[in-house]
């Protein structure tokens, strides 16, 4: 496999990304390598079926079911599969628990590795140069930008997803939510809280 071409193939397609993607799709469809209906099905999957609501169900279950929480911390891939979530970019899951003494934050400095089966496609900020470069060196400044306030005595642990292991942050359950149902709890849990750039708050009265 050659690496550094003097002539990158992609520069032979139109520079406008919309025209470029259309040209590439048309070539691949003509060759029978891609079925347009498959592309529609893939888009529908990640637009409507697989997203952060999956992860929120996992976290809410862990909050209400100590045995599930224990299984999640022991073997997250298997525990998450109990809820039916598995597949591409979630082959090797590890759950990391936020505590009063440790806040966890996930990044992929080398590309944009992200646990698709439970969080869907990563948001723009997660894929940005600024997040990739800064989260690992100045996580506290990054957290402050997201409005996350750490408590005194809370250290920060940053997980850089350099392999095929994908990390799920299990946020702390907020005070005053003991009467909420599992599904009401899930509704409180934001995508960012499961990456570490948000905290979960109790619903305001």
């Amino acid at each position, binding site marked *: 496999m050659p690496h550094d071409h003097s002539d990158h193939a*992609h520069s*032979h397609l139109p520079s406008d990304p919309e025209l470029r*993607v259309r040209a590439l799709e048309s070539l691949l469809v003509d060759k029978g390598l891609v079925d347009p209906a498959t592309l529609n099905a893939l888009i529908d999957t990640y637009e409507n079926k697989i997203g952060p609501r999956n992860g929120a169900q996992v976290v809410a279950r862990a909050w209400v079911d100590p045995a599930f929480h224990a299984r999640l911390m022991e073997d997250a891939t298997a525990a998450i599969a109990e809820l039916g979530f*598995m597949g591409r970019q979630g082959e*090797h899951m590890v759950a990391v628990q936020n505590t009063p003494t440790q806040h966890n934050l996930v990044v992929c400095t080398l590309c944009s590795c992200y646990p698709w089966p439970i969080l869907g496609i990563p948001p723009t*900020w997660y894929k940005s140069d600024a997040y990739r*470069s800064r989260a690992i060196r100045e996580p506290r400044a990054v957290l402050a930008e997201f409005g996350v306030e750490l408590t005194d005595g809370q250290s920060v642990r940053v997980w850089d997803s350099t392999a095929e292991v994908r990390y799920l942050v299990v946020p702390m359950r907020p005070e005053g939510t003991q009467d909420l149902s599992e599904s009401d709890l899930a509704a409180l849990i934001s995508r960012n809280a499961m990456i570490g750039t948000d905290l979960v708050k109790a619903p305001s009265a």
Partner: protein
Amino acid sequence: MSRVHDMGGRFGDGPIPEKDDSEVFHTDWEARALALNLACGALGAWNIDASRHARECLTPKDYAGFTYYEKWLGGLTDILVDSDLLTMEDLDGPPAGPAHSPDPRALKPENVDRAMHAQGSYMRPEGPQAKFRVGDPVRTVPHAQNTLVKGGHTRLPAYAAGRNGTIERLHGNHVFPDSNAHFLGPAPQPLYAVRFTAHDLWGADAEASGDDMVLDLWQSYLLEPSA
């Protein structure tokens, strides 16, 4: 010897953009670009490490100037040609028009659900035994470089090369990207989560002495600390 994608710890990028981003795709073409990558990946002509390397081989100017999905499109086009699924003549020439029957490798719409939910694994039973245990001190190799292929793919970020750390977890034997990205075989070896203190990584630039960072690193990236 670094490539442009290896940006962990870099200064100068400014504030994080679009922090309240909630749209899955911002334009139709982004959605199309993602789907094309997945559909072409399903042809089985390359592996995930090779596709990452294709994006990393974009010129620094393109990598910095392209939006996220433009990088994906660039890497995809290049690897399609490298894999002989498309030719430069295809890209340059007039449209040939619908030609053949569908390629038997093409992902069918009715199989999308199954393909995306397939529970693959990068773990392999073979390969060397783990040299380190949880709690062992280790030192990363001095250079973040592929020792099999010059300028090749590697997953040791430059900021973590030549640093002292501690084994936090054993993940088992995983496919080795430095080999797999170049179609030299999966060459599985032990993968570890390795913990570094903020001070060990950043020295005087560390934000807080009690903070730490964990990276997943393959055994051949790691040395005995005295070595």
